[in-house]
């Protein structure tokens, strides 16, 4: 009974880790697409600031009516477009997060339902080919919490942005980069290396 349960759980975990690898790739690619968008957001903010600073009446452009307002409108529209794109990206980040959470919670739920069959000794048993069930569950959970945390912070950053706070718009790119946690990403990669043999053995 117990061996059957272990085999089933192993099978499920294998599937989860394979999916996790795909999700990691997806996450990183979305992040890569976000970076230029934030850069342009910073540029737009700089332009808006410059617009505030310049005295158009003293330049040859003084002849154009409402130039300042028109330019501002244009720039703000551009900001809106970038923000909309970023929101789109956030949505795709969210799908990754949800997918990873689904994997982790499904595996854990299965364990909890069948916990009577899987005693602790079985769960902590590991071999050269396969890490223990406890470890596998732990790693999945770690991955889940890492993506949730990252997503929370990134979305919070975007939600806090306001078009009238130029300095914040300018520094948004830096903040975005500071959220990047190389350790966390490395953790996922390392985790995937560790389970590589286990995943391939199935």
């Amino acid at each position: 009974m117990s061996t059957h349960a272990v085999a089933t759980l192993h099978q499920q975990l294998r599937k989860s880790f394979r999916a996790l690898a795909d999700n990691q790739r997806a996450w990183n690619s979305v992040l890569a697409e976000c970076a230029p968008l934030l850069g342009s957001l910073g540029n737009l903010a700089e332009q808006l600031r410059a617009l505030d600073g310049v005295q158009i009446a003293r330049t040859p452009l003084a002849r154009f009516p409402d130039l300042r307002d028109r330019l501002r409108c244009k720039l703000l529209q551009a900001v809106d477009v970038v923000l909309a794109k970023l929101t789109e990206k956030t949505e795709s980040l969210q799908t990754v997060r949800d997918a990873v959470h689904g994997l982790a919670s499904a595996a854990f739920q299965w364990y909890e339902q069948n916990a009577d069959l899987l005693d602790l000794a079985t769960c902590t048993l590991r071999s050269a080919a396969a890490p223990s069930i406890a470890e596998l569950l732990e790693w999945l959970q770690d991955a889940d919490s890492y993506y949730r945390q990252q997503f929370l912070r990134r979305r919070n950053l975007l939600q806090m942005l306001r078009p009238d706070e130029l300095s914040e718009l300018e520094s948004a790119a830096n903040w975005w980069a500071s959220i990047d946690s190389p350790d966390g990403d490395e953790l996922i990669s390392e985790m995937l290396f560790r389970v590589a043999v286990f995943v391939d053995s199935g």
Partner: protein
Amino acid sequence: MTSVGVMEKLNLKWLPCDRQDKDTQRCRMGAGLMASLNLRIGSPVLICTSGSACLCRAWPRSDLAEGYLQFDTKCSTQNFSSQTFKHVSFTPQHITPLKCPKLKILKVNVVVKSSVFKKRTAGPLICELVKEMLKHMYVYEKHVVNVSSLDTGIDFVLVENVNSGSTKAGLVTGKTTLDVGAVVTLKQHRSRVQESASTSLGGMEEVYASLKELLLLPLHYPSALKKLGITCPRGVLLIGPPGVGKTMLVRRVVKDIGATLITLNGPVVLGSRPGESEENLRKMFKEAQEASEEGPCVLLIDEIDSLCPKRAGSSSAPENRVVAQLLTLMDGIGTRGFFVTIGATNQPDTLDPAMRRPGRFDREVIIGVPTLTQRKSILTCLSEKMPLCKGLDLCALAEMTTGYVGADLSALCREAALQAIRNAPQEFGEKRIEMHHFHEALKRVQPSCLRSSIGLTDYRPVSWDKIGGLEDVKLKIKQSVEWPMKYPESFIRLGLSRPRGILLYGPPGCAKTTLVKAAATSSHCAFLSVSGADLFSPFVGDSEKALAQLFRQARACSPSIVFLDELDTILGSRGDRRAPHSVQSQLLSVLLNELDGVGLKTVERRGTGEKVCHTEGHIESQHDQKMQYQEVCNKDVMVVAASNRPDALDSALMRPGRLDIMIYVPPPDYESRLAVLQLCTENMPLHSDVCLKEIAIQTDRYSGADLENLCKEAALLTLQQESMEASVIHHKYFVQALQNMKPSLSAQQIDSYQNLFT
């Protein structure tokens, strides 16, 4: 089963949490321990140590070692994360498995980093953020979830209750409804947590209530106040001698209503640059105003007399500017934001008069030196956490500590505890503080309102038995000094009041001073003794001031006895034509006023003010009632004067209401002389042929002092005529000494005393 038994005795060594386990709520332990506690991977457990707890999820250690415990303190009680566990030995009993259902409703308070974040972020956004943070976490009632690592502007989430209180712990899921209560800044939160450790307050219930009402009025009834068209009182001036707990009272009130406290004190505000002090003042008021936008706020100006002295008296312009700035700031605070300014001082007379008008300090609260009942409640508060021995009578202690203020009492308790430690340092654990420790401490801690008083004397306690004879006089003194303290209820019942003053007169050397000492010893009154040397000074008006000051201090620590020895030399009589405007007659007028003046200064008010003795004691115990009676009965100062020239005293002093009781202390008669001789020779080795009765017969008109001298003389003669090794005193030496001495009193003198007031 055996393995379970072994596991339960296992000592777990605490290790700091691994880096990868941070913020995961995991609690790492050995797989064997988990099995013995019947835990699965990820089961919620509560780790409790002395009064604090932490909610975790059990997880087997990756190295499978037993005997270690590591856990993450993301969700724990307030005091948990600040502890270190190096010295705490954990056992499996500390770990309790929990049942955590999925939560339907969760009520939390949120602590944010700054007020800027709070202002900028809308309520729903905070709610959504918090929900996202807590998702898939186990939470426990009244625990604090630390989310500062996420760096979102929210630092802590305080779990108020889960599932409306029906369960203690639970799992937050996507379907949980989150109810965000208060959003406070980190600063406010810290101040609240810090102050919760403060001690309780005794004997200040009424002042406390009125202060609290003042602060809460605009919070609770804003619309009613608007309708009535009135503004709330904005300033309170606390007046009281040092150490009565003015500052502590403010801190306590502020903590109880959850207000922000901003403290302002003189030295911090005053700067060296011109205009810097004013700028600092403005900054403090602005800070208070900003804080008041978030909730109730109190600006405490401690020792306000240093910051705001009388402008008329000082000539320095910078000081005047600071005062003027403070006055305008206090006026201008009504415009935006509402906060209460509380000033505390012990010298209200030195304040600028412009400060003490409605609109600035609307109310003046006087906190006097604690009365008997107040002292008792202070002592009860202070000794709450002290291991007192069972029979210890705090009432008796309160009676003994006349004139002690709160700070003195806490020093007294500390000293008593130190005594207890000193006596038995090894077995401190089960040591209890007993009455004799307090007696020891009483010797070391003097009441602070009597320090620097001219009248404070350190006298050797004398018991009534040490005075031979004079039974009538003793009884009379006991009646007027001791009885009002011991039987206040009888005095109240018969409408008796304590005499204001007692005059002891009689020939010199008849134990007048010793009688007063004995009276002071037997009643636990504060005893102030003053003589001409203390009072007279070369400066005009100084002596009068010193006497008035003496009475003020005596009143502050009543019941008290003021003893004026050799009254005739201090005062003299107004009828004396020789010096109509001498210092003596000025002192006399001061004394007459103090004894029977119109009233007291307002600043000298003590107690609650409305202490009326109602005879129907319902719930209160008999002892409490007695204490109240005693308070009513003994709130005055008693003057005891001694003189051997009562004829030289002013007649105005002698009338009832001033020195109402005159006691003639006669020279000792035969029985008294015998008693005196017995007392004097108590420590002398007398030969069996000594007949004290015979000596007593022969010593007519000898005073007590003469008799003492006689005994000394006889002993000296023994040494002189026998040898230095003499061991007993023979009768013949007494006879010899008698021959050399003359009585110091004459029959004529005694007659004149006896006929003086008849």
